[in-house]
């Protein structure tokens, strides 16, 4: 199985069309919407996790592109440098999915990579640059 996270940008006219529906039907891909936003001017943005055979996922992406959807791989994994992190909690104010959260009883800052969508917001906000973007190992292996 091939699992990848993509950022999709829909222009105004494509955001009306059921492209995701076709993506699933035509290519037998499982998907998980990590984030979806309609931006001003009715532009749409979506972060999708796609899972299927490698061929299907890649063909699915091509299909999206023919509909004018801008597709960008989030070929990243986010990790935390435990030596640098001083548990301040600033990142919990920006993480949209609670992958970074505070354990209230001792105010420790927890990072759950399973929940992380790779949006990268914590990377710029962390004052000591403890949150890092790194390539997923399998990406390097395939390159």
């Amino acid at each position, binding site marked *: 199985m091939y699992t990848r996270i993509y950022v999709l940008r829909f222009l105004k006219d494509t955001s009306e069309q059921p492209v995701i529906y076709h993506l699933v039907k035509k290519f037998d891909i499982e998907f998980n919407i990590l984030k979806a936003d309609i931006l001003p001017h009715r532009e749409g943005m979506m972060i999708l996790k796609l899972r299927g055979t490698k061929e299907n996922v890649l063909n699915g992406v091509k299909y999206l592109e023919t509909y004018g959807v801008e597709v960008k791989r989030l070929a990243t994994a986010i990790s935390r440098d435990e030596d640098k992190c001083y548990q*301040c909690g600033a990142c919990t104010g920006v993480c949209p999915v609670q992958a970074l959260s505070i354990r209230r009883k001792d105010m420790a800052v927890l990072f759950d990579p399973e929940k992380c969508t790779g949006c990268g917001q914590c990377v710029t906000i962390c004052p000591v*640059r403890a949150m890092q973007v790194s390539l997923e190992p399998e990406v390097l292996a395939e390159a």
Partner: protein
Amino acid sequence: MKDIKTYDEINARIEAGNAVIVTAEEMIGIVKEKGASQAAQEVDVVTTGTFSPMCSSGLLFNFGQMTPTIKASKVWLNKVPCYAGLAAVDAYIGATEPSEDDPLNKVYPGTFSYGGGHVIEDLLLGKKVFLEAKAYGTDCYAGRKMKKYVTLDDLPHALLCNPRNCYQNYNCAVNMTDKTVYTYMGMLKPDCGNAYYCSAGELSPLFNDPCYKTIGIGTRIFLGGGIGYVTWHGTQHNPNVERTPGGAPKTPAGTLMVQGDLKQMSADYIKAVSIPGYGNSLAVGMGIPIPILNEEMAMYTAVSNKDLFTQVIDYGHDYTNRIARSYGEVSYEQLQSGTITVNGKDVPTAPLSSIYMARKIAEELKAKIQKAEFFLSRPAQLLPDGR
């Protein structure tokens, strides 16, 4: 209030290994259970801690002479400008000074990836730092230029010298405008979408001695992992603010000027920070021991988050325009719960001050005193208390 013990008696007990030391968090339960009078009999010292960005920080250093000698008038460390209007080979590097070629906020919000705070951190990590000095040359100091790599060990003197640290309380920041703003209080989402606060609350040093009865000039403190001293009240120290019945200020109030030998410190307790859109700074870990001289000090040190308050301030418009308006008073208990209510709306909160590390510092200071590695000093003079 009459003292029931003296600094000397407490230090004698520390020396003998039978002093009772507890953290500010532990003291809350002790006073609740036994009452302030009994707690004052039993407890000798309460330790506190805080660890957060403290912008008014910097390093005063001497970098040693060369032949011919030089009276440096311009100095850089790793391209970060230092202040060199001092004699010969002394200079001061401020934590918020960005690297000279930093694009600042030209690409907004700027990332401020390297600044004075990072130089201090690199020195602490044992890294080599590139020093450049320029001079106009005199008969007694003929040198015009100096370039060399230095480490912390190479510097004859390196003194952390922070004119304003350890704020007694701090605002809770929100943004009431319709645009995201990048402030020293973090990235604030529009329409009051989030709130940041910055205090260790019940663990914070000056919340445990709210009327400055024991912390003063000459107080020995835990500073960045080493020993430091309070050397004056900090700039902007302002005791004349509204307070709770327990004496705790409800807005920013007292501050401390502190100094300590950087060579004793550790990068675990001093961290360079980059705040998007704002700039560079230094997070400083500090802990202050509070002698329980009497019942009053037992009462003060038993303060808890539910009795400590701050104001919700708009950093989108009000702060920079000096409009003194509070969108409400919130307790540190509410802030630490993760949600506060502003104008009837639930707003998620996040801290900027590490409470986890504040506790660790209070524990570490407690351990040092228990091992008789740290003694209390009686201040030569107390801080202005506004009376």
